[in-house]
């Protein structure tokens, strides 16, 4: 090739690349209007609340110590600093972690954020003062003490070394609050906002909307790109669909069902972009071990063996936000079982006829042929009612007669806590992918209060503890397999449903936001910009 033709080729390539590069360069300005598909949260204090509505409404105002990399949020273990300077290496055999705090972080009132603020916030999260709530304190069970050793250093001392520590530290609810405010008025953050995040609070209209404007002193230079945002609470899906269609709002960040995706893409064409991915939320079927005949492992295994996960998941994913067949660990995690590993577990066997024959045999052996029982369910369409309808049909194939009892959220919880059910649709939806902590759901109720199987099982606890305390990743993965096999196959404590699929349709002019497995994560909007 001559020099001239090479030059021409380079110029041509550059010309081709230019529009793409220009389109990907963030633009400054604009107000993002988005919806929060929920009623307004009880309070604005993320330390005490568990609903995503709090995070979606307030995350843009706050900083955290570390977070999932906003440029790579789909990776469950790519953590980066937010207010710290660099991710530290642990000392003391993995039991001491020392974080250096940036010196350019300012509160929205102009005062500097220091290590004392970080330490105080984490002290309140781990060991809340009497009368204060820290809803997720059990996630920080490995943390012993948190101290600010000087103005820019925070030291976490752990009770035991564990791979679950960094994900726990990346909890999206773990906002950094101002120390002197917490000391003066511990309830301040329930109704007020004062953070150090990319946006400054401007207005909260009770029950309706929350607004923020760009923080010009934000420590990530150039960010945020938006001039501001407005988040509107829209609990009805029909309103969300219409609003995106009419561009009253650009998106909602939680996730919509496949029907909404199909409708919006059909009506808006290239004006809408749909982001999808596996979701760290899953439903399961839990049998009440204190009710006969569900105290018999043979009956519980039969319930599991009757369901054809592999054949059921693909058609279900077309109508409901469920997608990937998995075990107790989020399928996108390196700790999750592979398909080959899963297929060795009862309920995942590739041959469904063999599986159902075994289910019938076990039911006969347990004297539970033609068993009739009630499946308690929550009055939520996606995916609860779809799941119940599907499994009832699957169970009918081994001669079981099951009826569905649908209850509003309050009575549903009362039923779970009061053990007034035979079998229930259950759930596990965590703030961040942290497999070692997330699978705590499968521990007995005496250890994990949100387990509703009503059983005691010391071996279950021992296997879990061995896995939690294992620091070698390969050995920990193997320990997780043993725990999983015991929970799902040996004891059939739970029957997993396909994991959820997160579908986020947004107006195509919204850029810079990347989907990730948790609807709690990556919501500070610092990287979001509008291509308008």
């Amino acid at each position: 090739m001559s020099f001239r033709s090479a030059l021409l080729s380079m110029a041509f390539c550059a010309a081709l690349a230019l529009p793409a590069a220009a389109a990907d360069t963030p633009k400054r300005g604009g107000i993002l209007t988005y919806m929060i598909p929920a009623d307004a949260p009880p309070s604005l204090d993320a330390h005490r609340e568990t609903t995503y509505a709090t995070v979606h409404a307030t995350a843009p105002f706050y900083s955290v110590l570390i977070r999932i990399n906003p440029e790579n949020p789909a990776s469950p273990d790519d953590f980066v600093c937010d207010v710290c300077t660099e991710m530290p290496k642990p000392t003391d055999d993995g039991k001491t972690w020392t974080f250096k705090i940036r010196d350019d972080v300012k509160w929205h009132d102009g005062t500097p954020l220091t290590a004392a603020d970080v330490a105080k916030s984490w002290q309140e999260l781990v060991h809340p003062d009497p009368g204060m709530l820290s809803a997720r304190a059990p996630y920080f069970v490995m943390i012993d003490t948190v101290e600010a050793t000087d103005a820019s250093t925070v030291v976490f001392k752990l009770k035991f070394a564990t791979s679950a520590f960094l994900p726990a530290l990346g909890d999206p609810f773990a906002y950094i609050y101002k120390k002197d405010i917490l000391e003066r008025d511990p309830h301040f953050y329930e109704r007020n906002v004062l953070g150090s995040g990319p946006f400054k609070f401007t207005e909260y209209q009770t029950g309706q909307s929350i607004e923020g404007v760009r923080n010009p002193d934000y420590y990530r230079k150039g960010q945020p790109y938006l001039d501001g945002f407005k988040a509107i609470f829209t609990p009805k899906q029909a309103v969300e669909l219409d609003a995106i269609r009419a561009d009253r709002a650009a998106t909602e960040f939680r996730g919509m069902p496949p029907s909404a995706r199909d409708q919006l893409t059909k009506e808006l064409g290239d004006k809408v972009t749909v982001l999808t991915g596996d979701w760290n939320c899953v439903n399961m079927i839990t049998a009440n071990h204190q009710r006969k005949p569900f105290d018999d492992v043979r009956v519980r295994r039969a319930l599991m063996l009757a369901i054809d996960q592999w054949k059921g998941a693909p058609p279900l994913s077309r109508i409901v936000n469920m997608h990937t067949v998995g075990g107790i660990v989020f399928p996108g995690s390196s700790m999750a079982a592979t398909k080959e590993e899963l297929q060795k577990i009862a309920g995942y066997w590739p041959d469904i006829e063999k599986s159902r024959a075994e289910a019938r045999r076990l039911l006969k052996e347990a004297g539970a042929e033609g068993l009739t029982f009630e499946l308690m369910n929550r009055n939520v369409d996606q995916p609860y009612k779809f799941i119940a309808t599907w499994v009832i049909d699957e169970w009918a194939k081994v001669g079981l007669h099951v009826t569905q009892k649908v209850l509003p959220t309050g009575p549903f919880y009362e039923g779970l806590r009061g053990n007034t059910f035979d079998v229930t649709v259950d759930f596990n939806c965590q703030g961040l992918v942290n497999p070692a902590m997330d699978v705590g759901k499968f521990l007995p109720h005496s250890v994990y209060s949100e387990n509703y199987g009503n059983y005691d099982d010391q071996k279950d606890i021992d296997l879990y503890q061995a896995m939690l305390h294992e620091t070698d990743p390969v050995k920990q993965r193997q320990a997780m397999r043993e725990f999983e096999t015991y929970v799902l196959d040996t004891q059939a404590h739970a029957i997993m449903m396909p994991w959820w699929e997160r579908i986020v349709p947004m107006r195509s002019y919204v850029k810079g936001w990347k989907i990730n497995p948790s609807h709690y994560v990556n919501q500070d909007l610092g990287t979001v910009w509008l291509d308008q």
Partner: protein
Amino acid sequence: MYQYILKRVLLTIPTLLGAAALVFLLMRLIPGDICLVRLGSGGASFDPKALIACHKEIGVDRPILVQFLEFIWGIIRFDFGTSMWSGKPVSTEILARLPISVEIALLATTVAVGIAIPLGTISALKQNTWIDVAVRIFAIGGIATPSFWLGIVSVLLVLDITSWVSGTPWMPPIDYVPIWKDPIRNLSMAILPAITVGYRYAAVSMRMTRSAMLEVMREDYVRTARAKGLINKLIINRHALKNALLPVVTLIGIEFAFLIGGLVVTEQVFNLNGVGRLFVQAVQNQDYTLTQALVMLTVAVFVFTNLAVDLLYGWLDPRIHFA
């Protein structure tokens, strides 16, 4: 007259107290726990100690009798306490939602009265003609059509029509702005719900106006007025319509009171942050204090609307005296 008003106002006290006792007991019969809903509905784990702290914080760990006496003492002092859900004063929660509900109620009433009285009157005067049949079909359609369905369809129609006409779909705003801040935005949000609610409301009132007018037009005094040679317009406006309006006014009063807290589904369809939606949230969340206050508000609105209607009777029919 003043004695009558005083007597009626005093009578509201046992009514309100009775309603208070009833709602207090009924709320506690519903299974569930506000703290469980609050901490657990996200699906994630929470600290069991947080559950105990939550019970203590909102006071549901105290004996029922203590809670009841505190509630009644609060009513006597017009203090409904704080919302168990949000921790904010109940009055703040309600006052934030009241403007939109009152606005929709007033607009819907205007739509309803504006349609119902003229059409009901015409229908009665043109009894058994095609006009009467058309008005009756229109009225029965309104009664038979649920306003939430009409709301959904009207939004979709507006979206489709604007998309077809201008290429850009339009729908009413999904967030409320007070009328004094931005009248156009406010009305563009409120007008569609007002029409969908007002249509049903108009249909019921129209049927009532027609029946009352038919009855009144057969009265002796109307025949006498005709015999005296009064023109038809004067007979209708001055004699017949005023008397026929008595039951219609009663109906309008009841409907108006219902609209203040009863637009449960319509407010959801249009994303209106009103009292009806708050009512649903309060019951779903098992927020006892807020639900109790909302029931008391609804009872009070009904009681005082009825009082206003009764007082209006005296103006409409001079034969009625208050003693």
